[in-house]
């Protein structure tokens, strides 16, 4: 008992109103009433005409839903885009409405180029360290005029004696051999 029970008032003989036939067509009537009515309406050409008209109407409505949708008018579409951009900006920040999303991982760069850049950077740092070490050795050693192993701040224990630089070693040829440079500016004169 899911539909309308008209309490026995449903006419089983024609003519039937369009409303009653539309109810029958839509499944509104009580199941038992509908089962009795269907064979009767099939016998009546006018009723069949109405039912066919309702079928055609439903088919036309269904076709409306399957046709390609017309484009949203440009004005409404622009308004929608603006509203959505504002919502995105509120949620994700101002850049959402202005720029494409930033990459979510570190940018990918060419491996060979990265290695070359790293090697260049390493070379500059290594060169600078060598130069600084050489200049530092000369600056520390020269004012004392010579050193002995016992004067060193820390002594390695045992084995080969540590490399000791004495004033006798400080000629230009030795220095050049050690640091590979021959221009020492004011230190070029061995008498100083």
């Amino acid at each position, binding site marked *: 008992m899911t539909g309308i029970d008209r309490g026995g008032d449903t006419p089983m003989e024609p003519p039937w109103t369009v409303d009653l036939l539309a109810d*029958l067509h*839509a499944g509104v009537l009580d199941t038992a009433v509908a089962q009795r009515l269907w064979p009767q309406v099939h016998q009546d050409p006018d009723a069949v005409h109405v039912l066919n008209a309702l079928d055609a109407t439903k088919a036309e409505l269904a076709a*409306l839903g399957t046709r390609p949708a017309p484009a949203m008018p440009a004005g409404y579409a622009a308004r929608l885009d603006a509203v959505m951009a504002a919502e995105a900006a509120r*949620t994700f920040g101002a850049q959402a409405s202005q720029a494409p999303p930033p990459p979510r991982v570190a940018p990918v760069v060419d491996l060979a180029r990265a290695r070359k850049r790293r090697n260049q950077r390493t070379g500059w740092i290594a060169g600078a360290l060598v130069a600084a070490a050489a200049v530092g050795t000369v600056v520390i050693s020269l004012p004392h005029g010579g050193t002995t192993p016992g004067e060193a701040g820390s002594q390695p224990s045992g084995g080969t004696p540590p490399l000791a630089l004495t004033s006798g070693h400080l000629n230009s040829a030795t220095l050049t051999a050690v640091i590979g440079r021959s221009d020492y500016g004011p230190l070029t004169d061995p008498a100083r």
Partner: protein
Amino acid sequence: MTAAARTDADLIAAHAAGDPGAFAELVRRHRDRMWAVALRTMRDPEEAADALQEAFISAFRAAGQFRAESQVTTWLHRIVVNACLDRIRRRQSRPTVPLPEAGPGEPAAAGDAMADRETRLVVGEALAALPDEQRVPIVMIDVDGYSVADTARLLGIAEGTVKSRCARGRAKLAKSLGHLRNPSADANVPDGAGDAGTRQPGGTRGTRQWEGR
């Protein structure tokens, strides 16, 4: 991966994960289809546009609740219909505002066949002439393919009421679309459906469905 290569579900997931451009792509993909849904449910283009905005904002904010087992289009469709129903309920609680004389104003896409455009306009106008309580369930069931049970639940009314309102509305449409030509049958159809269409049915007889789908 380009936006075009991403599925709708990918875009929803990307949006939920914080991709600020993903949802805009989703809107671009489905805007026209959802516009058609909103327009035939609301009738008035201005109200349809407002309903669509509300729907897309709701979807934007609720994307995290989307479950991949359902289709994004189905999910969006339901949100659009709900937004339309909310607006209709609000409208019904206000004094009646007359609709523009231009009717539903379904815009035509460039390249549409004239016959197709004419059919859409005629059916659209006939639908627009129905009162909300008949047009909305007919649109949901006969056009958009919702079941009677889903329609009843979304509208908050009994299934029998849905069927009955569809029956009344279809009878009016059958007349206004020119499918009911027998004067004696016409005499039983209530007036008020308008005379938007007088053309003859164009061989669109479908398989009879005795239940209201």
